[in-house]
């Protein structure tokens, strides 16, 4: 694992770049995998602010008593899920070429958290509609049959999950929800002793349409099939978000 700073870029100052007439958002795409899947969204936000300062990003700061930079993360991941396509919008006040800034940022990061692309944002994060995930499940007795069973569940007319909800007295109860309309392009296979699922789930940053947490898919499969209930040192599952799409579910979000 390469985790140390690579070759340091030439020293630079954010003052090298001209001020923008008005602050703009640079959109970054980044990876969060391996050990970093265990870092919560809140912790990631705080860490990222420090990374940007280390990288000398020409951050725009809010005015007022307690100035702070503006960072907007799309689709927070839950702890225990990895991603190859996280999006972050950062407001900058100077005209730094995004890819150049990205290099400086990568100099302050480890392999498991790495920026992959950068450009001035042209679309809104609200335009995100679908997210594609790879699930890899290693569980006792996994075989081709289990893969078929899972496929059947995920492509059925109705895909019922139990959703946590609270009544008006704040008591927690579970209610059924059919998520079939929010799951598409499912494929399931069995390879190297693991069941591999690929699927697109509805994704939204502001609830204009449902956001399906990939973890709920695993929870549902656990309940329906009794998988992943054995020895934890031999059973495990991984979730990786691989791509994000616009509403058509085919055009990559950018």
């Amino acid at each position, binding site marked *: 694992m390469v*985790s140390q700073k690579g070759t340091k870029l030439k020293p630079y100052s954010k003052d090298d770049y001209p001020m923008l007439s008005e602050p703009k958002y640079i959109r970054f795409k980044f990876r969060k995998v391996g050990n970093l899947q265990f870092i*919560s969204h809140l912790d990631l936000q705080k860490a990222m602010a420090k*990374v*940007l300062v280390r990288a000398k990003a020409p951050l725009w700061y809010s005015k007022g008593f307690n*100035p702070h930079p503006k960072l907007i993360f799309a689709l927070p991941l839950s*702890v*225990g899920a990895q991603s190859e396509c996280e999006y972050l919008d950062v407001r900058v006040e100077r005209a730094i070429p995004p890819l150049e800034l990205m290099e400086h940022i990568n100099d302050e990061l480890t392999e498991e958290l790495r920026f992959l692309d950068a450009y001035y944002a042209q679309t809104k994060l609200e335009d995100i509609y679908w997210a594609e995930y790879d699930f890899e499940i290693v569980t006792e007795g996994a075989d081709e049959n289990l893969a078929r069973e899972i496929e059947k569940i995920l492509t059925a007319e109705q895909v019922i999950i139990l959703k946590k909800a609270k009544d008006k007295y704040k008591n927690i109860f579970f209610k059924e929800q059919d998520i079939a309309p929010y799951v598409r392009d499912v494929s399931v296979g069995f390879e190297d002793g693991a069941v591999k699922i690929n699927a697109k789930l509805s994704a939204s940053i502001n609830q204009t349409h449902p956001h399906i947490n990939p973890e709920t898919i695993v929870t549902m499969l656990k309940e329906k099939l009794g998988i992943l209930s054995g020895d*934890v*040192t031999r059973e495990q599952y991984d979730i990786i978000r691989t791509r994000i799409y616009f509403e058509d579910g085919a055009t990559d979000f950018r």
Partner: protein
Amino acid sequence: MKIKNTSILKSVEKPGRYSAGEFGQIIKDKKDIKARWAFCFPDTYEIGMSNLGVRILYGALNSEPDIWCERAYAPWTDMQEKMREHDIPLTAHESGDPLGDFDIVGITLQYEMCYTTTLKMLELAKIPLYAKDRGEEFPIIIGGGPCAYNAEPIADFFDCFSIGEGEENLVEFTRLYIEMKERGTYNKKDFLHRAAAEIGGIYVPSLYDVTYNDDGTIKAYTPVYPDVPRRVLKRIMTDMDKSYFPDKVVMPYIETVHDRIMLEVYRGCIRGCRFCQAGMVYRPVREKTPEVLNEQAKCLYEATGYDEISLSSLSISDYSRLSELTDNLLEWTDKNMVSLSLPSLRVDSFTKELMDKISTVRTGGLTFAPEAGSQRLRDVINKNVCEADLLRAVNVGFDAGKTSCKLYFMMGLPTETYEDLDGIAELAKAVIEAYYENPNRQKGRAPSVTVSVSCFIPKPFTPFQWEAQDSMETFVEKQKYLESKITDRKIRYVHHDARVSHVEAILARGDRRLAPALALACERGFCFDAWDEFFHYDEWIKVFEDCGIDYNFYSNRVWGEDEVLPWDVIDCGVTKEFLKRERGNAYAEKTTPSCREKCSGCGVNKLGGERTWCPKKEQN
């Protein structure tokens, strides 16, 4: 602790504690490495990551190309359960290798209540607790940190201790280890013997025979070899400007206790409060220059991206060039949205000027530590502040619109009477009155004062090291009394748990005969005793009783000044004569000037040091 199994990580609280992979962690190629260190902090990751001492020593050891130092922390109880369930040993953070595979395991002992966690870590690492039970196949276990000044209660579990500041001596220690390994002359016994004889500040407990008198006091400590020092002299870094400074920092991804830059401004303390161990054992004061500090602060800012710099030292306002330093810092911190903070302010230094400059002083609460309620008792403990100073300081705060104030006191100090306790209540009342008399106060808002009272613990290497701690009954009585004296609803009274302080006092002045109790405590599952929810007083007492230990012998007894003390085997530079003299001054209610005003001849100047207030050591 680094766990690679994701299923286990998914099943515990805060898995980020164990997953590692931080930016700035040091990974080395094992084939270049001649000695592997695991530096353990016997508490959680969040606390350990915030410790400046660990940061310094991690950096110092890793600056040697053939030494690789990793970190290890105590896994939380939920993870401990998983480890037991699946037979997973405690591992180091960077490589994930079991602690038992290392050459040297270092454990920093920051407070007595971490002893049980220390033993738990050894147990989880499947390393036998007692040093005598560990063969050549196990790592060398070395302790350090403030508790190493009297490590006797846990001495049997360690091969050796590093006394004082470890930047140089841990490297020398490892060099000797490598040299003996390379020459083929290494075995644990010879290595420890040579380390004790040749390296300053290495204490090897097994090289001293301890005998006891019939009355339970210690008769003698006798070195078993003639070339082992009778007393182990602590090490210090003489020139703090040139002392190793960690310019690279491991950046935690999860929130830790101190997510900010900690800029060590100086070591030591000029004051000499008579209850304070740190004020004695970290002597002499050695300052850094503002120029060096400013450079170091910039460097840390660039390496971390933190938005706060905390100027950390025992009593920051005693730094002789504080205003120069803050001016230098403010030149660049303000425009980079970095704030400065000062953790510890004396009442006599709390000024309008400082408040204007330092944002945390501006925005934070008013917090002062008069420590004792009456002038008489403040003179006894040599806390050179008076009521007028305190009232002036709170008024500066009230002028600026503050309405609340927190005051720290200690209960059970030597010579304390109920009148002194009345003084605590009166001082709090005086602060409330000062508020209402202040014409610039925030009109229409009521003031609030919090009185926080801890329990006095006699600590080794202080003028009060011979004093008795109050009994539990007395503490409870005094706490009730004080509570009854505080009737104003605007004054909030909180006090420490006397039961914790009692156990702390037993361990602080303990000797080697406490080892069986600690081993039994570990066997009974004690861990994280510094955490309220895991501290069980009755079980501690039961452990002592089951081991046949008269625990009050350690805590509630006035020790004789001519007694051999368990920590006499350590020389912290400050002489016993000085401590006795200071104790005499305490009973005479006589204060001692700070080192900056006048040297009181504590003896530590024999260690030298740059930018100290000490007279130069005598040439001989």
